[in-house]
């Protein structure tokens, strides 16, 4: 058992590109659910909108990559409008079902063969983000990988992480400022009771739409970062399971807290990748042969165990610590929804 390798994985993944992506998507979802109470089960749809904005700008429109980011943001805003105007009047559970349906509709639409010229259909869009990496300050001749303590990253990942965590910091700052302002107060009031807010003269629908758009755009930035990191936009990577992972991330951190998505994302990825590498090490060293045989564990199904742990973890978390790691039980008890 190579504990050094396991720790390296835990630390590297905990702060790695996936964690950045989920932190961003989580900040967006936290604005939706944590502050405004919108039961958005389609956050991955916003990620897809951002990702395809960049991808399609380069692949289909042959624009400059950097303008693609603007197109991605425009897509997210468009999606928020398209989704929000008709559905934000709905009850919470209906909204949840509608948003998950919308995110699936997006996935089915972009992977449709009729869209091959625009979205690359099921093949997706590849190698579109070269301008992003052209500015990489970590590139150096010879070694392409950096290692310090338990962290180990490729130069390209480091560059994605630098930009990514900077964007995360900015988004956290914006969220913090907005949520202590009167605007944020209205959102929180809507989360508690929309009718009361309307009776007091606030256009609740407009506020919900603004929250949906803001959280959607931040989620879209996450989606962009994900496809830039992979240099590939694949329709099937934007499936509902991703949305549920983002939910887990914000619940881990504590819903409705500014830092929760960031901390949640770090913990989530550290645990998930830690578990996987631990099991792989276990298989390699043969330390638990009987155990493995008993459970039919092998190299090809290790990643399934990861998902089982994720599902079970979400259940247990929601049952026994719904306020997350840093939330307060008392505050949660006030929740009468």
């Amino acid at each position, binding site marked *: 058992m190579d504990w050094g390798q396991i720790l390296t994985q835990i630390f590297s993944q905990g702060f790695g590109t996936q964690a950045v992506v989920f932190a961003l998507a989580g900040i967006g979802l936290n604005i939706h659910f944590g502050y405004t109470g919108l039961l958005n089960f389609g956050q991955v749809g916003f990620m897809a909108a951002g990702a395809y904005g960049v991808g399609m700008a380069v692949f289909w429109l042959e624009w400059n990559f950097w303008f693609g980011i603007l197109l991605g943001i425009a897509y997210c805003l468009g999606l928020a409008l398209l989704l929000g105007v008709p559905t934000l009047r709905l009850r919470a559970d209906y909204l949840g079902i509608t948003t998950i349906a919308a995110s699936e509709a997006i996935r089915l639409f972009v992977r449709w063969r009729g869209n091959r010229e625009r979205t690359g259909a099921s093949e997706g869009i590849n190698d579109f983000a070269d301008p992003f990496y052209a500015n990489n300050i970590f590139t150096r001749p010879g070694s392409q990988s950096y290692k310090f303590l338990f962290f180990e990253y490729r130069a390209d990942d480091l560059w994605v992480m630098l930009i990514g965590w900077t964007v995360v910091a900015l988004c956290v700052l914006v969220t913090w400022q907005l949520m202590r302002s009167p605007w944020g107060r209205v959102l929180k009031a809507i989360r508690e009771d929309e009718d*009361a*807010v309307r*009776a007091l003269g606030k*256009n609740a629908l407009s506020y919900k739409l603004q929250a949906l758009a803001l959280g959607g755009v931040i989620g879209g930035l996450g989606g962009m970062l994900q496809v830039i990191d992979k240099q590939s936009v694949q329709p099937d990577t934007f499936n509902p399971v991703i949305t549920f992972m983002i939910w887990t991330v914000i619940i881990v951190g504590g819903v409705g807290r500014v830092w929760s998505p960031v901390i949640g994302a770090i913990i989530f990825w550290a645990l998930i990748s830690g578990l996987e590498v631990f099991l792989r090490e276990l298989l390699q060293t043969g330390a638990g042969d009987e155990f493995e045989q008993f459970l039919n564990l092998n190299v090809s199904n290790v990643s399934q165990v990861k998902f089982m742990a994720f599902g079970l973890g979400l259940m247990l978390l929601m049952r026994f610590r719904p306020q997350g790691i840093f939330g307060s039980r008392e505050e949660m008890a006030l929740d009468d929804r």
Partner: protein
Amino acid sequence: MTGNEPTNEIVLGVTAGGGGAAGAEMEHDNPVAGLFDDIEGTPGVAKPDPILVAKGVRRSFGGLVAVDVDYLEVQRGAITALIGPNGAGKTTFFNLLTGFDKADTGHVELNGDSIDGVASYKLASRGMVRTFQLTKALSKLSVLENMKLGAKDQGGESMAKALITPLWRRRENEVEEQARGLLDRFNLTHMSDEFAGTLSGGQRKLVEMARALMTDPELVMLDEPMAGVNPALTQSLLGHVKQLRAEKRTVIFVEHDMDVVRDISDWVVVMAEGRIIAEGTPESIGKNQAVVDAYLGSSHDSALDFSDDDTPSEASDA
């Protein structure tokens, strides 16, 4: 009505002891005292200066007609009670008046302007504010934040301005001052930093009323303001409602408790099965045969004692 008025005030002065400063203020005059003496108590009767007029308002759910009001005027500056047995359509009518539900047919005018199809949130800026039967205290906001939410003209409630603190800080300070003033009046200062979810039912009613006043309304619509409030707090709440009238605001409220209705209302509107079956002063309404029938015909179990010697002091003891 005028004959009863002094009794009311004396009694309130005593029983609202828990209300403290609020109780003392209660001894203001009734600005509309005597106004209703000459008005005949028939459904749809015209008032000298109506603030709210409803014409032919009808709402049905499936086959059930929940509200069918031919004509109603609500007098400015008075306290109007809306009573009726369970299922009479009071709350639905309230929802229709406040834009929370849409009438199938009919018109509603506020200050002479039509408010048909006007979104509920726009009515606050026109001077109309409402509370709810099931109190809507915003549980995970502090009492002070609950209050601040009611404020008008807070530029910081726009997303762009919210980003830059100096653009809203000054107004925020004003709002906070106003909010603390109201909390003081409603004896809630000691709770201002608590989560509203930790308050008792009566305190929530107070917060909701105080929050409504943050919008500086002309017309306050209270849906069962006394429901679930303990008797000690009832008198304090009644005092606050009268205080609204003293401030020249109009109050419409839905209520079940006839003693409360007799105590504070200037005019009573009775609904049954969606229709307005009677209107009149509190004194006259108890003698109205249609009203008695409507109540006895239903399974409603609230006290319907209209004996002539029924005084408010007994009511508060009951």
